[in-house]
């Protein structure tokens, strides 16, 4: 790092991956303004995302380090998170151009917005300061609102965008109030030295020191603290579509262009979950004494556990009743949030399991949403009956879709099984027997609605009017599908290739990501 420019008070090199993404986004906007259209924009976007991920791996240090005046974490877990989020954007790109072209609405701005959404996600997930969490969340959400409302002449699109926008900003207002209360509490702690040296009072490391002192022996402060955390949880549970705050999910996903709905359901969710997990880790929600893990704030974990329980039950039961595939996938994504939350309730190991789950879920869900987009007869028409007999008409299509669906169900040789296994095993180790049991039982309900679609495809009567899916297998979606299927099989057989790097960075904060990835 000899060439570090001390422009921002800290090494600029550390934020290079994000600066690079920002440049790519701005360049894409400019190219669009100068009428450069066609396949070149998605390819540039993809290359930008890949290069940014490589930069993050190359410049991120294995131990924790902060950049940008203590605002952004660039070491430890951060490079891996950056790679995951770029991957979710990248896989979406494989399905997006063909989908937009099919409806004769190639909106080229979408690529720039995709990059900006990824930037927001990375900022939010890697934030070391609650200010950055808020800004990242809003950057991401703003792009996602536009995705939902993208087809401005289509009433469905308007409606889903409007709903998402109103409910989303309503939830962020609560999050912001929570941050404000935390700030009010944090400042009450008088440090011997001048406060100037501490930097931001909302920095997570600073909060980890000030909050316990403020809470000690003060009932009022404790009530304020729990209110604040409750409000912050509302904001996050909304973004991840957990039970009491899930109602927007099916409507928004249904009205959003299908590949982008997949991006929302994976990247957006992953970023919000990681941000929440990092806050829980940094504020020491769990502590270890004599090798046994304890909860610092048991009430908060109980609330999360109840949310997880209800999310799993509700998402799976309602998904089983759906006849529209996109709504089914939306409810199933609610259910998957419940499984990730289950990991969060299980402490430190649970966070690793959740991270693994989120990554695998990204692979299979982007694939599933992308293929649903390919099979649409006309704009946003995704009724399940249209899938009958696809197995004969388009065998490759049906086979690949089956891999995604089996993986979402959690059938052994596929990655989805390993992800679920990791989450449930950590939950059982943490004595969350009831939650784990409910999780396993609701997965069985999940098997019903996922496998029903496979039965439709292979044993249903052939439809006369079904679109010719074989012509839709152009090189872009075909490459994407092949890559995703290969990754799902690979991580299903060798989960340790991704689990051990996660393990290392989360566990010790000193894990050597690059070495374990063979770089």
């Amino acid at each position: 790092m000899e060439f570090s420019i001390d422009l921002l008070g800290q090494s600029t090199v550390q934020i290079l991956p994000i600066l690079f993404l920002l440049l790519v986004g701005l360049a894409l906007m400019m190219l669009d303004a100068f009428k450069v259209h066609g396949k070149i924009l998605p390819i540039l976007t993809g290359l930008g995302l890949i290069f940014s991920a490589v930069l993050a791996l190359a410049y991120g240090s294995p131990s924790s380090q902060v950049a940008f005046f203590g605002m952004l974490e660039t070491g430890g877990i951060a490079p891996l998170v950056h790679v995951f989020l770029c991957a979710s954007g990248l896989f979406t790109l494989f399905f997006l151009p063909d989908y937009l072209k099919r409806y004769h609405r190639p909106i080229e701005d979408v690529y720039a917005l995709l990059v900006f959404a990824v930037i927001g996600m990375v900022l939010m997930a890697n934030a070391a300061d609650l200010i950055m969490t808020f800004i990242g969340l809003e950057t991401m959400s703003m792009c996602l609102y536009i995705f939902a409302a993208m087809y401005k002449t289509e009433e469905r699109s308007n409606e889903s965008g409007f709903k998402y926008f109103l409910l989303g900003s309503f939830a962020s207002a609560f999050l912001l109030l929570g941050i404000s209360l935390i700030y009010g509490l944090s400042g009450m702690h008088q440090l011997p030295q001048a406060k100037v040296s501490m930097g931001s009072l909302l920095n997570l490391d600073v909060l980890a020191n000030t909050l316990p002192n403020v809470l000690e022996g003060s009932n009022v402060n404790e009530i304020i603290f729990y209110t604040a955390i409750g409000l912050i949880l509302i904001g996050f549970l909304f973004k991840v579509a957990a039970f009491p705050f899930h109602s927007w999910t099916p409507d928004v996903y249904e009205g959003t262009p299908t590949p982008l709905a997949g991006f929302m359901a994976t990247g957006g969710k992953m970023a919000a979950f990681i941000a929440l997990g990092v806050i829980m880790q940094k504020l020491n929600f769990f502590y270890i004494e004599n090798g046994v893990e304890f909860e610092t704030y048991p009430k908060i974990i109980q609330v999360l556990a109840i949310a997880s329980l209800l999310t799993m039950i509700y998402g799976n039961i309602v998904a089983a009743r759906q006849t529209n595939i996109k709504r089914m996938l939306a409810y199933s994504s609610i259910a998957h949030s419940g499984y990730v939350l289950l990991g969060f309730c299980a402490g430190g190991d649970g966070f690793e399991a959740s991270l693994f789950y989120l990554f695998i879920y990204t692979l299979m869900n982007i694939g599933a949403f992308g293929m649903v987009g390919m099979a649409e007869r006309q704009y946003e028409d995704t009724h399940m009956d249209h899938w009958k007999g696809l197995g004969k008409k388009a065998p490759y299509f049906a086979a690949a879709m089956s891999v995604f669906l089996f993986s979402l169900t959690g059938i052994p040789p596929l990655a989805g099984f390993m992800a679920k296994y990791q989450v449930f095993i950590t939950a059982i180790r943490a004595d969350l027997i009831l939650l784990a049991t409910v999780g396993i039982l609701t997965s069985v309900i999940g098997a019903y609605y996922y496998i029903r679609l496979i039965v439709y495809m292979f044993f249903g009567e052939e439809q006369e009017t079904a679109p010719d899916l074989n012509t839709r297998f152009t090189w872009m979606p075909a490459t994407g599908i092949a890559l995703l299927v290969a990754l799902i099989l690979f991580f299903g057989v060798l989960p340790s290739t991704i689990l051990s790097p996660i393990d290392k960075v989360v566990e010790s904060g000193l894990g050597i990501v690059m070495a374990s990835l063979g770089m």
Partner: protein
Amino acid sequence: MESLAPNAFSYLAVSIVMFAIGTIGVMTRRNGIVVFMCIELMLNAVNLSLVTFSRMHNDPTGSMLVFFVMCVAAAEAVVGLSIIIALFRNKLDIDINNLNIFKW
């Protein structure tokens, strides 16, 4: 609490009341634009509390966050109002009770 303490709590009370008005407005109003205004009111209520805390603690972090919140609110207004305009062009109506295309 420093010298401003007695005043500070009245500011905080105003902020909480404003936030509550905003929340109730979002839940009861049916006109999309009024709902959006109520959300802005909630954000501004938080801004007031942040500034108050900032002054109480004699620390700049809160005031700093206020600037970001104002930027975010402005960006949100751009996105939100354009979505509302697109919706109005198609439906000639922004009553949120009439948003009922999607059914489970």
